């Protein structure tokens, strides 16, 4: 389910550019996790697998790995919607330390 990690595209000349306006690569080289001030941490022992964090993630940076939700910290912007919406209250937002 995870989108591929794309590399940055560099055109060396105008001839290399595609003529049609089309998307030739996704933006996954842009690691938006650097924008984050607070990070979500999931306490899996309290998780009820309701899928609400996955459903409401605007990135979408919550993956499903072996039927458990896992946050992809490369892209999570730390908006906190998952922690606010979680019915089991198993996601907490903690301060980011770099």
């Amino acid at each position: 389910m995870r989108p591929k990690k794309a590399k940055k595209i560099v055109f060396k000349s105008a001839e290399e550019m595609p003529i049609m306006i089309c998307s030739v690569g996704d933006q996954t080289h842009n690691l938006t996790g650097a924008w984050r001030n607070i990070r979500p941490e999931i306490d899996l022992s309290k998780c009820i697998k309701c899928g609400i964090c996955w459903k409401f993630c605007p990135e979408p940076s919550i993956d499903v790995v072996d039927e458990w939700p896992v946050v992809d910290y490369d892209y999570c912007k730390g908006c906190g919607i998952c922690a606010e919406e979680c019915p089991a209250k198993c996601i907490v937002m903690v301060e980011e330390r770099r």
Partner: protein
Amino acid sequence: MSQDTKKEKKFTMTLPPEELMACGHLACQGCGATLAMRYMLKGLGQKTALCIPACCWAVIDGPYPYSSLDVPIYHCAFETAASTATGVKAGLEMAGDPETTVVAWAGDGGTFDIGIQALSGAAERNDDIIYVCYDNEAYMNTGIQRSSATPYGAWTTTTPVKHFKNRPKKDIVAILAAHRIPYIATASVSHPEDFVRKVKKAKAIKGTRFFHVYAPCPTGWKSRPEDSVKLARMAVQNGLFPLYEIEDGEKYTLNLKLKDKKPVEDYLRLQGRFRHLSPEAIAEIQAEIDVRWARLLKHVEA
């Protein structure tokens, strides 16, 4: 629940698992418009072409040659979302591809103000397109200017606190219903199952289909990013943004029946753009909502 039974339990997915929106896009934290796009693409699938005029999504998507979406996109001029989609659809039909769904995806400025003549023209010709307006209630991309979708009492940079907007929001759904197009629906990012169901229903219908999607904007509404989905849900529950469908401009269906509406004050107090409102102004907003709600119920019962 013991740990073993929990391990076996499947992760609940109430939406289609396909993800056509990739990470790394340029939206603000807690953006409602990205959620709207994600749900719409989940409903429509890969065979979709998008026409996006100048709006937040023209930026979120990424600069050329990148795109966060796994579908083709046509970036068009501000006022031409509907007419570009008409042209793309006609071109696809000429090329022998009647399957692809063509979607015009515009913000509230590109729908309510600038794009309304193109939209009205496409609706009158009943062109086979889906038009989605994601409504964040101002020109958010250019710096929170007032649009005709801005509600009564809201602060924007062009309607400052001393002269806040004193006109109500334009009723775009009623304008489109007057065009007698086959399908009109309102949707909210807080009710994704309902949104995806409506998108799948619209995909099967031929003719102009219109969606009005409520997409909160933490940056412009001066609300907390984590409250985005909560605000959208509150707007549905207090009758400010009811979820309903209109078929052929006549048949109204209310999707979420409210037993008693919640007061609008809790919703207004979560947003910095309504901080200056006096109790009298809030009572006025509540009265306006009650009038609109009664009018909608009359349509549904008729």
